């Protein structure tokens, strides 16, 4: 990145908003559709003011009908539009799962390549706000199980700003998961920030003793853990996966080949999660590079509890990352 570029202080929320704004300005075929995206201004205030600027034809408030409006997005995409379907929260996307899985992900294949679905679906994901067991899961790893869709998980302001347009240019359905806790995240973004590539993971912090592989909100826990490990003489490399499907094996394996240890962190449940997949790939592709078994830190396998202390206990935390790394890396001297 150009170090001299002028930057502005902004938030993740504002970055998502800029990405949407940019897409709506660039391409008349783009429209936003979902619950409360218009008159309410978006349940995370991401589309505030859009209905005034772009009108109700392009900023479409839908009834509470997730299955229908997601399916309608698929149809509109096939019909030549470039819809952005917004689903408020990942748990509600389960009402639309049939359309995502049985239509969006399969139409190209079933039609023998005749009909592609250039659709983008955005949704909030994740826990941490005491929203309990029907509003606070991290199911993006689940979605990454499905061939035919791509799964993006922007963690940084650059990605929050830039992944959308790239997703819209993709000929196939792309799901973008925005962790609810990231919207208020503050940081600097170049004034020239624009679309970003979505094919590669990114090394966010270089290191030599262990690779901490993660994505989305856990990235910041991993970075905090790496910081405190550094104070104890352990050098952790931190990788932001950015895209969960397709996974960027090359970046993961290159890092593991260097550090010889891998810890995967994600906020989904442990059994059958994305960390299990990454761990298996490391075993398949880099087994002989490893000095220690791959470890995982995931959410405890319980529906999310409401009480603060229980929710914190259910989620991966920086302290647990530090403890795991210390287990894996032999003490120096």
């Amino acid at each position, binding site marked *: 990145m150009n170090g001299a570029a002028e930057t502005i202080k902004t938030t993740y929320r504002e970055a998502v908003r800029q990405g949407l704004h940019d897409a709506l300005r660039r391409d008349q075929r783009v429209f936003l559709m979902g*619950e*409360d995206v218009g*008159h*309410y*201004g978006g*349940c995370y205030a991401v589309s505030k003011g859009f209905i005034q600027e772009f009108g109700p034809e392009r900023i479409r*408030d*839908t*009834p*509470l*009908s*997730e*299955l*229908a409006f997601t399916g309608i997005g698929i149809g509109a995409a096939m019909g030549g539009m470039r819809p952005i379907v917004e689903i408020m929260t990942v*748990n*509600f996307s389960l*009402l639309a799962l049939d359309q995502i899985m049985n239509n969006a992900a399969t139409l190209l294949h079933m039609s023998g390549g005749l009909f592609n679905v250039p659709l983008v679906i955005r949704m909030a994901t994740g826990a941490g*706000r*005491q*929203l*309990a*067991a*029907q*509003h606070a899961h991290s199911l993006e790893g689940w979605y990454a199980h499905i061939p035919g869709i791509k799964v993006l998980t922007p963690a940084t302001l650059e990605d929050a700003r830039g992944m959308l347009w790239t997703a819209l240019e993709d000929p196939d359905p792309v799901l973008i998961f925005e962790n609810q806790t990231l919207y208020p995240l503050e940081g600097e973004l170049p004034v020239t920030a624009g679309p970003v590539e979505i094919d590669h993971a990114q090394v966010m912090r270089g290191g030599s003793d262990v690779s901490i592989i993660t994505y989305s909100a856990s990235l910041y826990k991993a970075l905090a853990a790496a910081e405190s490990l550094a104070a104890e003489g352990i050098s952790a490399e931190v990788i932001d996966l950015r895209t969960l499907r397709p996974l960027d094996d090359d970046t993961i394996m290159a890092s593991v080949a260097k550090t010889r240890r891998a810890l995967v962190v994600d906020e989904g449940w442990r059994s059958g999660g994305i960390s299990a997949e990454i761990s298996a790939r490391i075993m398949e592709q880099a087994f002989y590079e490893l000095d220690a078994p791959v470890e995982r830190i995931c959410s*405890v*396998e*319980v*529906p999310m*509890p*409401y*009480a*603060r*202390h*229980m929710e914190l*206990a*259910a989620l991966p935390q920086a302290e647990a990352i530090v403890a795991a790394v210390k287990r894996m890396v032999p003490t120096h001297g």
Partner: protein
Amino acid sequence: MKKKPPQPTTDQEHWIRLLRQMLLIRRFEEKCAELYSATKIRGFLHLYIGEEAVSVGVMAALTPVDAVVATYREHGQALARGVSPGALMAEMYGKQEGCCRGRGGSMHIFDAATRFYGGNAIVGGSIPLAVGLALADKMQGRQRVSCCFFGDGAVAEGAFHESMNIASLWKLPVLFVCENNLYAMGSALRYTQAVTDLAAKGAGYAVQSEAVDGMDVLAVESAARKAVDSVRGGNGPCFLECRTYRFRAHSMFDAELYRTKEEVEEWKKRDPILQLSASLRAQEALADADFEQMESEVAREVDDAIAFAEAGTWEPVDDLTRFVYSERRTG
């Protein structure tokens, strides 16, 4: 000593009880809002203020053997059903003395003793549960009613339509109660329904339906009684649309950009508590002093609930993975 007004009639005594229940919900929730600002209550908090007549009226028509399935705006539904205010408040505090041990919070209030099958935070998600409870009753030859509450927004979900159809097809004892407060979050009914007369939807499923003034607790109660009698009598489900209004924001995060202050003020003139208390006063069934006494009793009850929640304890973290599976070996 002041001269007492004439003894209230049995009806009037009943109406006074309804008034007291509405007042309890109102004052309880006003405190909830304060406690949210004080960060004692967290997560999402949806207040029922303005809509009290709906659940108080409907619950008055139900009996203890009946089942209730609620929404995420369910403090009023829970209190009207008889869930203990202390257990409810402790739940919102996240304490283990809460009715769900602090696992659920405001949106997930459950209570077995009152057959209160839960606050549900997936819009429309609980409607089929009521149909299933009714199916179980029918298959086991019990004369019980399963009542589900849901909002106008939920009427747009497939779950509502599929449930209405099946309940009618199988003649199940379900009372569908729609709390039509004209908004689903920030989406006005006119932007979400092609036909805004929600009671008219029942006809398509051959479900007996009625719309009622949801700001008038007596009207709600009498419509609910009629419906409950019919449902209990084996005539299949009924659908009651209660036309009401929420005076507060959708939740604690809502800037209310989608409606005017004037509209809210207009509806506040129809406050169900003011209406009933004015009517009781006009009948001389309720003196100012009686109302003040009611206020102070209710205030004490709310204070007791808060004290109970404050004194509550945190569930040990070691218990985190309990209740993922049953602790008993058989159903």
